[in-house]
């Protein structure tokens, strides 16, 4: 497991340590190179180098790949005034902050349902996990049909139970589109969180739950005072995982709404894609600037979240 890296030079010195491996006789550099080399090569060439290059790109206007034009911070200045970008950031942040709460919350509730020893637990666990496996393309296509105004099941059901007034153009209405997409995301990921929460609940020491039983705790009491508090590390972990994933979301939005209607579902990733590959003027510098800013935002928010949510004592048992 990675060392917990905090502030201070002691932590950085820890990184330079040789590692936890058992081979103390010291391996030859050749061996290390052959084992680690290919991975580092691929990582360096396809991850580290492009990352640096994108950041460098952001200081240029690149309409002709052979002749990038230096513009300094001009792209960033434009970005500061770019209304679409602002909208995209807001949408993405709404998604990243709200959806994980629903994801993890629903996942926890489902896990509690399965923990209550219902029949067919194994089947349900497998069935509820299925949406996680479907590609976003499949999910997008299916839900496009489900959200269809005339014959999609959502509206059909509303009309069938007499709430026809609630039938809406889920993806066509700028006020509903983002929420509709978030709903699909929760549909896809609740099963994942359910599985993790279930495993975590099963790993709780049974004697503590028995002690709670003797302390006059029924189901509700155990849940509130023992299970959920002891699950906090896992729940926070899931939240951060979901947060990071939502900050990257592209597939679903692109296929279903392409950022519309009226930028109500525009996310940073769709905006970058559009500016880089689907804009009337070809320029890679500007989207590179967007990507660089976003990269900074993601790193900062993840570190902040980490610090904020994990600052209390670990629950050790």
């Amino acid at each position, binding site marked *: 497991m990675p060392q917990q890296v905090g502030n201070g030079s002691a932590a950085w010195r820890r990184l330079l340590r040789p590692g936890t491996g058992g081979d103390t006789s010291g391996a030859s550099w050749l061996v290390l190179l052959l084992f680690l080399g290919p991975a580092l090569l691929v990582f360096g060439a396809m991850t580290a180098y492009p990352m640096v290059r994108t950041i460098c790109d952001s200081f240029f206007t690149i309409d002709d790949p052979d002749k990038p034009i230096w513009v300094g911070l001009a792209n960033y200045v434009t970005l500061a005034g770019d209304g679409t970008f602002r909208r995209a950031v807001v949408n993405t942040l709404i998604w990243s902050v709200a959806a994980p709460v629903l994801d993890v919350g629903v996942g926890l509730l489902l896990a509690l349902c399965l923990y209550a020893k219902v029949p067919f637990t194994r089947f349900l666990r497998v069935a509820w996990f299925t949406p996680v496996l479907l590609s976003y393309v499949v999910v997008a296509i299916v839900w496009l049909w489900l959200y269809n105004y005339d014959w999609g099941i959502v509206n059909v059901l509303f009309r069938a139970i007499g709430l026809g007034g609630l039938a809406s153009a889920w993806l066509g209405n700028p006020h509903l589109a983002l929420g509709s997409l978030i709903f699909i995301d929760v549909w896809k990921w609740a099963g994942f969180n359910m599985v993790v929460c279930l495993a975590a609940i099963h790993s709780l*020491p049974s*004697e*503590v739950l*028995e*002690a*709670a*039983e*003797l*302390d*006059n*705790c029924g189901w509700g*009491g155990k849940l509130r*005072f*023992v299970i959920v*508090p*002891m699950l*906090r590390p896992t729940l926070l972990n899931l939240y951060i995982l979901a947060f990071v994933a939502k900050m990257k979301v592209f597939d679903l939005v692109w296929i279903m709404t392409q950022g519309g209607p009226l930028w109500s579902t525009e996310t940073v990733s769709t905006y970058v894609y559009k500016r880089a590959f689907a804009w009337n003027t070809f320029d890679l510098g500007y989207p590179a600037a967007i990507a660089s800013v976003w990269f900074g935002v993601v790193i900062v928010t993840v570190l902040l979240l980490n610090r904020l949510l994990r600052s209390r*004592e*670990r*629950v*050790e*048992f």
Partner: protein
Amino acid sequence: MATVQLDAVSKSYGSGPLAVDNVNLSIADGEFMVLLGPSGCGKSTTLRMIAGIESISAGKLSINGRVVNNVPARDRDIAMVFQSYALYPHMTVADNLAFGLRRRAVPKPEIARRVREVADLLGLTPYLARKPSALSGGQRQRVALGRAMVREPQVFLFDEPLSNLDAALRVNTRNELIRQHHRLGSTMIYVTHDQVEAMTMGSRICVMNAGRVVQTGSPLEVYWNPADTFVARFLGAPPMNLLQLPVGTGERLLASNDSATVPLTLWRPATLAPYAGQSLIVGVRAEDVRLGPPPDATPSGWFRGRIDAIEPLGAETLVLVSAGAAEVTARLGRDVPARVGETVTLSFDAAAVHLFDPATTTAITREL
């Protein structure tokens, strides 16, 4: 009044053998009853059935005369100290102690008073604001005990509470528990596999094996009059020497072979008649065995064989001798004038002999 009564209580998990088989036990008010036995003998399961966290498959469990088979654990007025302490890791010590009372809507001033008192008694006052992860094993143990005491229950249950402590701490905590028992006078049921704990703490011991109760009685009773070979060897360190010897005929009843002669003077000839020509299991405790030939005056038996090992323990010495096919251990004093490899004679009083039926392994009661 807090009596606990088990009538033919059994526990089965599916189609396998019974985990607890037909246990009958009567625990009086204020008694310290120890359930003793090896791992897997069903003692913990029995305890958990009394607590209510394990369901009872058959039989009747009564507390104070009230049948509680179907009464949920939280309504039995029972508190339990778990082997792993089972403290709530996310709550402070104070909250751990107060939790059960809060859940029972005990008024706040009363809760505060009880927590304060118990913390005082157990020396936990400086730790009230800490979380369990910041405590040592012994301190956690005391919090677990405190959590039970604060409830002022009718019955205390202990599930091997000392097994996770180191030796010195175990002795201290053991004395602490005995002290609390004297102070509170409550009924306590204590599960352990450690016979030293059983002997020092219990007012009565119930020895269990393979789900069944083998013998119940005061510690010394069970020690001096074991009901079968299992109890004979389970209590006492080193375990009782057991040898299978053929019964002789003749005037002085003896069980003997080339390396051992055991006088059976404590039994009537009529009792032993069925075993004529067959063999019996003879038992002699290591502390009753002396080095040297038997004195003429008192009726004695003897073993003869080669010393295999000598284990000096400081205050005493254990000598292992192979007498024929059997190995006999003698517990002797500090200085033993013998060496490994020597052939020696060990002797013992006729009054120290135990007899067991070879087929059923049960003891043949002394009569004379």
